């Protein structure tokens, strides 16, 4: 059993850390958060520096960790422009790979992955967007909610209902995925503002009004959309675990720096046992989360994904991030409130919600365990 990552991955980690420390300046991160602006320059720089490389998942994973450790909002924004690409890599046609995936991998275009609707998030099969044939053409009607890259993506991988299920128990049947371009007639998106955190990322509500979808934009087999989404979640959840881990590590970094500053101020607080315990407990939980996440990633990247471990990693890392940011914020008190620690506190919460809430992860874990 080897608990270390290969040298080339550790090299990417170091490079990612250096990049984030240099590029995610205080001014940039503050502005993106305050004005809810997507840092497109950072995306381009991150691409040019080779960090957005879906073909090198370990590299992406450690980059996600290191980027979010410096700033979760800008870090996520930098690495998410190819959101959903794995669906095309796994199930897309050659045409789709060439037309949609390639420009994304070249850093020329941005993609989004659109499942959630106003009426259904956790309940993926409960969506109501319709994809149906009329006069031999596919027509898309409906809308999506909380879609990342919603105002900046060139195209979206959209889940829609293409056939009514035979029975309520089979609701996950009859769902299909289609590629929708933001330039298509009938597409519109409205930016969602006033988010608690991750304010550098673009989030939007999408509307589809009688959009004509060419047959070649249907992904994989008709009716298999639910499974494609689930297999995508098995991948993306690991990246969210990395995001959460990075956020928690960022909180730990800030706690350590703060304790050192207190010490140099001559404060006895730095040596309080309660401070030492806070540090030790947070660091221990981070290491435990790391083990779970790397185990999940190792299995996935060897093409043997284990949804149980993946969901455990996502759920556990998210809870570690939420707890770490809260305890450090409380400990720093006024000393933290005007620093980026308050942003880490706000940014951490999303990891318990997106790509499957913590409750949904627990349901996945128990159901899969009972099947084993």
């Amino acid at each position, binding site marked *: 059993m080897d608990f270390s990552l290969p040298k080339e991955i550790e090299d990417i980690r170091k490079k990612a850390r250096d990049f984030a420390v240099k590029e995610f300046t205080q001014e940039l991160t503050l502005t993106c958060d*305050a004005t809810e602006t997507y840092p497109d320059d950072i995306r381009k720089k991150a691409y040019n520096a080779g960090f957005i490389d879906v073909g090198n998942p370990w590299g992406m994973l450690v980059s996600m960790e290191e980027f979010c450790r410096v700033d979760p909002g800008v870090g996520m924004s930098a690495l998410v422009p190819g959101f959903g690409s794995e669906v095309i890599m796994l199930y897309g046609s050659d045409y789709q790979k060439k037309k949609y995936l390639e420009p994304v991998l070249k850093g020329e275009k941005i993609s989004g992955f659109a499942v959630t609707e106003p009426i259904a*998030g956790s309940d993926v099969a*409960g969506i109501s967007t319709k994809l149906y044939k009329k006069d031999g053409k596919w027509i898309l009607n409906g809308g999506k909610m909380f879609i990342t890259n919603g105002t900046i993506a060139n195209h979206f991988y959209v889940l829609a209902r293409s056939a009514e299920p035979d029975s309520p128990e089979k609701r996950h049947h009859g769902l299909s995925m289609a590629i929708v371009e933001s330039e298509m007639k009938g597409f519109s998106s409205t930016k969602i503002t*006033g*988010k*608690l955190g991750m304010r550098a990322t673009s989030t939007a509500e999408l509307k589809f009004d009688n959009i004509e979808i060419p047959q070649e934009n249907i992904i994989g087999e008709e009716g298999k959309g639910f499974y494609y989404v689930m297999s995508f979640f098995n991948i993306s959840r690991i990246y969210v675990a990395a995001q959460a881990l990075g956020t928690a590590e960022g909180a730990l970094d800030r706690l350590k720096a703060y304790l050192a500053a207190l010490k140099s101020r001559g404060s006895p607080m730095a040596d*309080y046992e309660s401070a030492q315990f806070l540090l030790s407990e947070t660091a221990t939980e981070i290491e435990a989360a790391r083990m779970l996440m790397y185990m999940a990633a190792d299995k996935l990247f060897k093409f043997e994904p284990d949804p149980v471990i993946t969901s455990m990693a996502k759920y556990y890392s998210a809870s570690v991030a939420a707890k770490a940011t809260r305890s450090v914020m409380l400990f720093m008190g006024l000393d933290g409130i005007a620093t980026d620690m308050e942003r880490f506190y706000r940014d951490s*919460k999303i990891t318990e919600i997106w790509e499957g809430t913590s409750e949904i992860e627990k349901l996945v874990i128990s159901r899969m365990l009972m099947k084993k």
Partner: protein
Amino acid sequence: MLTEEQEVLRNTVKDFCEKYLVKSALDIERKGISDDIKQKLAENGFLGAYIPQDCGGSGLDKKSYALMLQEFAGYSPSVAFWIFLNNSIFSELLIKNLDKTICREILEKVAANKATAAVLFEDVLKNSIAAPQLEIDENLSVKGDNSALKIKGKQDYVLNPGADFFIAAVKKGSEDGILLLNKGVSVVADNPHLGFRGIRFSKVVLDSPTKDAVFLSTTNGLDLIRKTYNNASYEVAAIAIGIAKAAVSAAIDYAKTRKTFGSELISFQPIAFSLESYISEIDRMENDLYNSTSPEDIKNALRAKLKAVEMVLNASSLALQVHGGYGYIEDFKIERFYRDSMALAVFTGNHFNDMINLSKIDFGDKSAVY
């Protein structure tokens, strides 16, 4: 548990909030508490609720005042905190340390919204500050009438920097005192704003030729302000309970209507159980708080505050979680409750210092030293 009068007060506050705050709660966060709302708070006697009647306030007793804050907190934590800062901190410091005539003059204005007040709390709430950072310019010493007194320096954490009156701890030789200032405070920059966004939060510089400055105390300044914060623990507990109650009740309403997998959220045990456990915890805390025969007792108040603040951090997080993605955006008030819970913890003291204080009260001076 509550007297008839207190029930009437609670309903009056509720009616006021329904009428004036429900629609403007989001605006308050985006643009600040409007003068119109402050004026209405003043006209209804809420702005000076805890200020004694002979100083122009409503002279509520501590329990009734806390109850009022709790109700406000459920609608707009910013408004509750604005009233809290004016009454529990500013007015208390003045009343306990200043000549009644001057007190009356100032507090009448504050209660009537003719002037606003701020307390520069940085040195009191920041970790490990032994002496005030603001120093009286020694070259211009105090000459009886204070006409040549000058105070210079900066403060990084100021709520309501546009106030007409400021209370600040200052270093004067080897002593630390408290000054009341009314000029020479200017904003350098605004801070990131985790919570209570209805109240401006800024970095300021002071350069006050404080002809009119008045000493509230020439010794033990930091301790006096700290004590005032400790004495306000009871009210902090009430605000925390108010936020938690509103957050959990919004989550229950949401869980009863939002459907996933064909059923209302409330039908899923983990959701029903966790909401239920908060209802009973909040109920118990509320009972304890308002059944207390001695709201002035620091030990009980500090305990109530610590428990209530911890509870509201958890309760608002749960409420946000129950709302899923919708909890994450400002249109649903939960996002605000989540941020304001932490702001409440940070702007009313330090968790660890409170724990140390409480340990010392309970276990003696040798406890909680290392």
